[in-house]
């Protein structure tokens, strides 16, 4: 089920990485066709990638719908069809994203002129606005939690949440924000080695956090036998699950930035993707701190 939530995150997050048309407030420099490199070739204003991406996303949603229809004692559809549509849709979606971002950003990266300062401003705004939508995406879950938290509490036996694992995980995530920020400072000042090392460390710390989160889920679900769908479990697993998906997406984005950094695609003048992904990562970090304060500490305080 997470995939439906995830699907909202991914295309939006990729928005921050949209095509090179971003450097285009050319009031007097003539029209800059938005998609010069895209298939079909030879047309500045035509691209197959949007419709491919949209078909992929639609496949994902249809797949989730079929999964739901295949559940229960009297399933409406066979068990083989839903995973095929779901996996197929996701594959087409990822292919569309890849083609789009590759043709939009990467393919003619070297040939393109150095953008002037402030040219990536629309990409930055795109990320800021996406994060605003994300605040609202998280809000619904928080509102549910506050609704039940202000009622009779506790609603049942609460699982043991405050352990050293949460402390370590929180420390790891905050540390990753620091390393990413220093890495970003590094590329802005032209310190490439520092940038690469700290960016790599950030990816590693992100992975450690995901591992810690999985360990916590294992402890809660398998060892403790916490209910996933009871009053507290609904809030806990919805919010931490949604956050976990965000961290996963963040690690993927950071890895892409890392690979591009290894290929030498960022410099003191050109580092838009580093900036936008940083914004995303710091935001996810902030959400985690709020989660710990309200959901972990707040449930027993």
């Amino acid at each position, binding site marked *: 089920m997470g995939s439906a939530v995830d699907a909202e995150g991914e295309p939006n997050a990729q928005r921050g990485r949209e095509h090179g048309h971003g450097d285009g407030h050319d009031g007097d420099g003539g029209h800059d066709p938005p998609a010069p490199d895209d298939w079909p070739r030879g047309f500045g204003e035509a*691209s197959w990638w949007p419709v491919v991406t949209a078909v992929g996303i639609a496949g994902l949603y249809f797949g989730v719908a079929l999964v739901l229809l295949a559940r229960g004692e009297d399933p409406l559809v066979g068990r083989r*069809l839903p995973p095929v549509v779901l996996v197929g849709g996701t594959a087409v979606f990822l292919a569309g994203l890849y083609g789009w971002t590759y043709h939009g950003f990467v393919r003619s990266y070297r040939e393109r002129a150095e953008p002037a300062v402030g040219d990536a401003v629309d990409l930055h705004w795109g990320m800021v606005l996406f994060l605003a939508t994300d605040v609202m995406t998280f*809000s619904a879950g928080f509102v549910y939690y506050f609704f039940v938290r202000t009622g009779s509490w506790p609603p049942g036996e609460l699982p043991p949440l405050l352990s050293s694992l949460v402390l370590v995980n929180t420390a790891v995530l905050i540390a990753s924000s620091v390393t990413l920020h220093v890495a970003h400072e590094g590329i802005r000042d032209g310190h490439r080695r520092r940038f690469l090392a700290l960016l790599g460390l950030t990816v590693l710390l992100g992975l450690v956090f995901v591992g810690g989160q999985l360990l916590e889920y294992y402890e809660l679900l398998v060892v403790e036998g916490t209910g996933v769908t009871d009053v507290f479990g609904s809030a806990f697993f919805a919010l931490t699950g949604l956050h976990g998906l965000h961290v996963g997406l963040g690690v993927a984005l950071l890895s892409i930035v890392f690979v591009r950094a290894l290929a030498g695609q960022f410099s003191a003048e050109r580092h838009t993707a580093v900036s936008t992904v940083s914004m995303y990562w710091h935001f996810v970090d902030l959400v985690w701190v709020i989660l710990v304060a309200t959901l972990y500490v707040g449930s027993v305080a």
Partner: protein
Amino acid sequence: MLETIPGVVVAAVIAAALLAYYRLRSGRPARSFADGGTASVTVGLTGTEKPAGLLRWFTTVDHKDIGLLYILFGTAAALWGATDAMMIRTELLVPETAIWNVETYNAVFTTHGFTMLFFFVTPVFTGIANYVLPLLLGADDLAFPRINAIAFWLLPPSLLLVRGGLITDVMGMVLGVLPLDVSALEALEPVGMGWTMYTPLSVEMANPQISVALLGLHLSGVATTMAAINFIVTVLTERPDDLGWDRLDIFSWNILVTSGLILLAFPLLGSTLIMLLLDRNFGTTFFAIEGGGPMLWQHLFWFFGHPEVYILVLPAFGLISLILPKFCGRRLFGFRFIVYSTIAIGVMSFGVWAHHMFATGMDPRLRASFMAVSLAIAIPSAIKEFNWIATMWNGRLRLDAPLICIIGGLSTFVVGGITGVFLAAVPVDLVLHDTHYVVGHFHLIVVGVIPLAMIAASYYWFPLITGRMYNQRLARVQSLLLVVGSFVTFLPLLVLGYEGMPRRYGVYPAEFITLNQIASLGALVLGVSVVLWLVNMVQSARVGPVVRDADVWNLKETGQFTREWQWFEERLEERRDGSTRPESSPERTRAGEDTDSDSDSDSDSGSD
């Protein structure tokens, strides 16, 4: 489902054959049409920037093409939703359920709401904004052209998911004649829980299509949010340096505020829908009695739902503010205050949601505060209304179809708006809640203002978009019919509400029959009007007189020849010159295939 695959394959083959046929037909561009028409300057075929034929529409990243796709999609959805509306009014012709059964009635008013709100109004306004916003700003395109295209292409599948129950039933009937198992298709029925999807009903209804529809609504929300982000970034970053905030046009202001509302309202709805989906399918407790309860659903839903009301109507206000002065020969009166009132509505719209919940037994102190804000939001709306009237004062009114639409819209807005002030008062609402008074109130706005503004825009920019003129006499008749139809349909509903007829019932006491029949008659007038509009649009786009002077509305003499018309004038001049002018090279191929007598030498479509 696997067993039905042969049927799907057959359908796919037929679709592919049709596609190939149209590809073949449209592959060779016609120089002229059989009925004497010619290709237009603006929608006309293009040389190097875009492929020809069907391929162009599937691959386009041009804001104008995507705008047209949005408008076409929204119009198709509107016709579908209007069919639902006509079914509702047909059922209500008689007190008993003589025509459809109760379940069908429930399904029809539910899908009517979904289709009109999510797939008609917002897509059409997104389409209009797509087309004209960059032209009004003087920008090349929207900030993210590919995102723009993705956002559009997500809408058709989401409509399929939301309206799946009907589609699968029809497919089941068609495929049922073949030796196939269609029970899965028949198990999905059109959803009938009301567009507000109140729990616990929406959790407990067995119809599996509800879950599918929730996914479709979520997907449409993703698409709408993507478009909103695109508009905000475009207004923020793609303006030329000489276009400051003080000179931003009124339509762009409205789209900016609307997009801001979408940005905060739709993602919350998205999460809320997923929570309902989890409650339905996995037994979580978000809206269960022991968890958040039905009140949580109502709070979350209306926190989206009330801003949604303004998401629907603010673009209409923007169009009225933009077009009205053009037909009065005067500048918009109180421009700055209209902008302030738009922003005020945007901010306050997030503080009024609980006025939909006055009858739920919520805390009276909360009720009072929401009543205060709900009454106060009438003030910025009234500021707009009075400024529009002041714009017309002493103006030279030209009663062309767009102005008829707008004056009609202003008058329906007075009735629709003031009935809203009554409903915002707790004691009145407790009496009128869930009666036809509420239906009459908001339909006077969503039918009386929004489509009128859209149709005004469709007439106003028709020459710019198609390069042709529409039939003006037919347009005037059609506009008048729409205004009259709105009043005849929805004023009786206000009276019915006062008399106590509840909404959402297919059967009603016999004493209400006369007013219901008047309302149904009004709906018929609305239907006729829509058909006339459609005929005018299609036929004029094919064979309407070709526009040769870009100043269709005599805007130059009052100094209102705005940027989008200047852009149109450049296109016309290029076609007339038949040459490519360097400063507007991007559009030089736009004239494309062109068989106008004065530009037979124009052959630039092949030369570059």
